């Protein structure tokens, strides 16, 4: 073990310690070994660590100190909407009436939970202007696939089995083409034009009678609103295809525009982004899916319904694509989103988008002085810079990102979207103050100065973090994916 290695929990283990008190048996024990064939009785104990309760807390507190979250500092990770995670959400999710209910309980014993879910569905329908919403999908990617399965079922219900293509812009999130594949479609790319928007001519070229759907994020991943959305919808609809809205970026337009009004037939929302379910270090998320009236019969089952003030699950949905997840979605995350929507209301949500967009434009105008800005129009909630000026001086976007770590910032998303060279994708969100934005801007400008004067300072960054750059090549070439005792 090198000098600064932080011990693994297994390396803290010592035979005979524990951190769990189990109740003692209050009746004579049964002879399990007599009942079970020895083939099924485990011979060697699993090597779980043996540690006391304090050692557990020291270990995980130590690990948390080696981790950076939104509460630690500014986290302008583009496309991820790293806004503040409200604390009331966490408290509410821990109320026993919500956290300690079983999904197979009789609906009459969980009317409060169902009421919350129904209210949330109603709110999301209003925000997106869709006909019906299901909370079942576990996250954005699963929701994308769910909606594509519905679109597939819709076409098949019309006797249309030849729609094999799903169109995806070159700037799309990686999940879009991946979801298309999992749903059994071929993903076909449509190019962006010089303004960073979908190229209408190219769209006309790729859309035909084989097109099942177009997947679109609006504003797109460059943070730009697809201004020709009406024409795009017409092109796809005229060919018999459907329009799918990837709601990853809805933080930009709440109360200003709704996917349903733009012609989208299906949408998903990432409740762990715009609606403050915490990201949790990568999950859990929640990805409700909303659809037009035409697609509603195909929603996953069961569907939550309300009849005579009683909430229940409707399983009698013959055209449903079926279940996409056991039970009814990530209830705990949905509850946090509901709490957020109730805190903000229509007025608050519109301000969220207003300020998210103002913050992004403010930063963009300050930073374009030193960093190349490939698309110069007003942005929405995020913008994409290119590090190509700095690259000419031998400093890559990766280096700039690492240098930001030295200054206590989480870097922006880098090298995405793929259609911008040396991309730096910045999303400040509305919960950050002007002082925070100014601090980050100043740092970015001084890094740009460092690139000119002392490039090695940036190239060799980070200098102040607990570990330096990692050897990712060896990690992938000779994978060590678990601990073995030496």
């Amino acid at each position, binding site marked *: 073990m090198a000098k600064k290695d*932080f011990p693994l929990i*297994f390396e803290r283990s010592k035979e005979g310690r*524990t*951190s769990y008190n189990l109740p003692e048996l209050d009746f004579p024990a*049964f002879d399990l070994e007599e009942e079970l064939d020895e083939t*099924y*009785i485990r011979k060697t*104990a699993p090597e779980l660590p*043996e*540690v006391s309760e304090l050692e*557990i*807390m020291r270990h995980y507190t130590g690990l948390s100190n*080696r*981790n950076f*979250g939104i509460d630690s500092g500014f*986290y302008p990770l583009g496309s991820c909407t790293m806004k503040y995670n409200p604390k009331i959400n966490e408290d509410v999710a821990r*109320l026993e009436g*919500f*956290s300690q*209910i079983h999904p197979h309980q009789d609906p009459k*014993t969980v*009317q409060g939970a169902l*009421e*919350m879910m129904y209210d949330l569905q109603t709110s999301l329908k209003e925000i997106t202007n869709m006909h019906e919403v299901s909370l079942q999908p576990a996250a954005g*990617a699963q929701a994308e696939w769910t909606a594509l399965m519905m679109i597939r079922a819709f076409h098949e219900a019309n006797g249309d089995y030849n729609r094999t293509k799903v169109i995806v812009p070159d700037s799309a999130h990686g999940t879009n083409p*991946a979801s*298309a594949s*999992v749903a059994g479609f071929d993903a076909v790319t449509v190019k962006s034009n010089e303004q960073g928007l979908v190229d209408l001519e190219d769209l006309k070229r790729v859309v035909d009678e084989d097109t099942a759907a177009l997947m679109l994020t609006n504003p797109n991943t460059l943070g730009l*609103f697809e*201004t020709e959305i009406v024409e795009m919808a017409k092109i796809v609809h005229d060919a018999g295809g459907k329009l799918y809205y990837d709601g990853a970026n809805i933080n930009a337009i709440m109360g*200003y525009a709704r996917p349903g009004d733009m012609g989208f037939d299906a949408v998903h929302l990432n409740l762990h982004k715009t609606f403050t379910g*915490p*990201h949790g*270090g990568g999950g*859990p998320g929640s990805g409700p899916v909303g659809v037009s009236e035409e697609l509603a019969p195909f929603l996953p089952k069961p569907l939550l319904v309300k009849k005579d003030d009683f909430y229940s699950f409707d399983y009698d949905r013959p055209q449903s694509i*079926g279940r996409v997840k*056991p*039970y009814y979605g990530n*209830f705990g*995350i949905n509850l946090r989103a509901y709490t957020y*929507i109730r805190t903000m*209301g*229509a007025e608050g*949500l*519109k*301000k*969220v988008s207003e*300020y998210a*967009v103002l913050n992004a434009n403010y930063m963009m105008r300050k930073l374009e002085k030193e960093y190349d800005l490939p698309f110069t129009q007003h942005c929405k909630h995020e913008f994409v810079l290119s590090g190509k000026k700095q690259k000419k001086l031998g400093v890559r976007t990766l280096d700039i990102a690492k240098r930001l*770590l030295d200054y206590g910032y989480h870097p922006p998303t880098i090298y995405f979207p793929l259609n911008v060279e040396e991309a730096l994708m910045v999303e400040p969100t509305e919960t950050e103050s*002007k002082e925070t934005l100014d601090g980050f801007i100043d740092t970015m400008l001084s890094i740009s100065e460092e690139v000119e004067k002392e490039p090695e300072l940036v190239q060799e960054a*980070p200098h102040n973090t607990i*570990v*330096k*750059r*990692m050897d990712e090549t060896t990690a*992938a070439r000779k*994978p*060590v994916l678990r*601990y073995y005792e030496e």
Partner: protein
Amino acid sequence: MDFRYLPMTETDKKEMLETVGVQSTDELFSDIPEDVRFNGELNLKQPTSEAELKNELTAMANKNTNVKQYTSFLGAGVYDHFIPSVVDHVISRSEFYTAYTPYQPEVSQGELQAIFEFQTMISELTGMPISNSSMYDGGTALAEAVNLSAAQTRKKKILVSKTVHPESRAVIETYSKGPNLEIVEIDHNNGKTDLNQLEKELDEDTASVVIQYPNFFGQIESLDKVNELIQNQKKTMFIVSSNPLALGYLTPPGEFGADIVVGDTQVFGIPAQFGGPHCGYFATTKKLMRKVPGRLIGQTTDEDGVRGFVLTLQAREQHIRRDKATSNICSNQALNALASSVAMSSLGKHGVKKMAVLNMQKARYMKQRLEESSISVVSEGPFFNEFVIKLSNSVSATNDKLLDKGIIGGYDLGLVYPDLENHMLVAVTEIRTKEEIDTFVKELGDING
């Protein structure tokens, strides 16, 4: 209304608009075409103060009957186990729960290491060399395993035992439509997979066989015998869905030749919370390491030789491979994997066996008490912490009466198995006391008497 999450002041706004060079924020939205712009106000409930909202939501929570107020014998895939206090204290540390996916390893070592440890614990419990960093839940992990088996073997036929959780089977069914698989369900004989039918259906077109262990009825399936059958078809893969707590006592599926082992770690430190979020796990062989869906954490060193951890083998994943990725999964269940890691660390090597045994003991105590009463116990043979009983009345009517006595009864098997009308699946975990079990047996006897 004041909005406590929005720090923008009028002065800030004015200065920022000036920098941007516009008169008002509306100008920043002028790129939205007039005909699709929303000019009204969203019809949502009025915003609420923190104090009022807490009251409102507490009242809503109180409308639900919860398993802490009532004595629950409901399991069927989601269990009421004790969660040590340390779990919530750890996952409440906001450095963990407010972080994103650890794409910047220098400032994410805490998360990366914790999940590397999770992978190790799952590997130990399942007896498989590789575990990923988590999936949405046990059901979708199983569906991903099925799709992987089809891609790997280039075969379309999947044999799924009817003793696999019905909701997982439903998810498999939906996932199978994309790659166009043929799902064949294998019947059960009084709660265990019919091995004769399995043998008949198993042929050279079979991509995989899916077995749950312990199964949905709580029975311990004969994985050794299933494996013997599969050995006759060299390419067919063996997929096992397993409750990881049971593996504290049972021989791990890895020792029975499993190719993929999946399940849900809800049993370790995650509350039922109406079915989600829970936490799927996905464990497999070295051979399939580069086909695994989702994120993998690997150990490496930094420039100074200090040990550290990174996301690795990312060429499998959607953000790199796009339409050629092994799965579309992006978000996973990292925070819940952390919760389960803390719970598993609390239990430790011997505690996990002790807890599994306690579950088995208490379930056997209840089974014996029921057998002594008038209730008919249908399950035979080795089981974990669940078994099937047959009632003289409908399960729903019985559960209504139990509810009046402060008891949440078992799962109504007739809802999904037409031949099991009036059959109830009951679960007994380590937190049920002798008194609670005695009361349940007495009340059930009275209702069915």
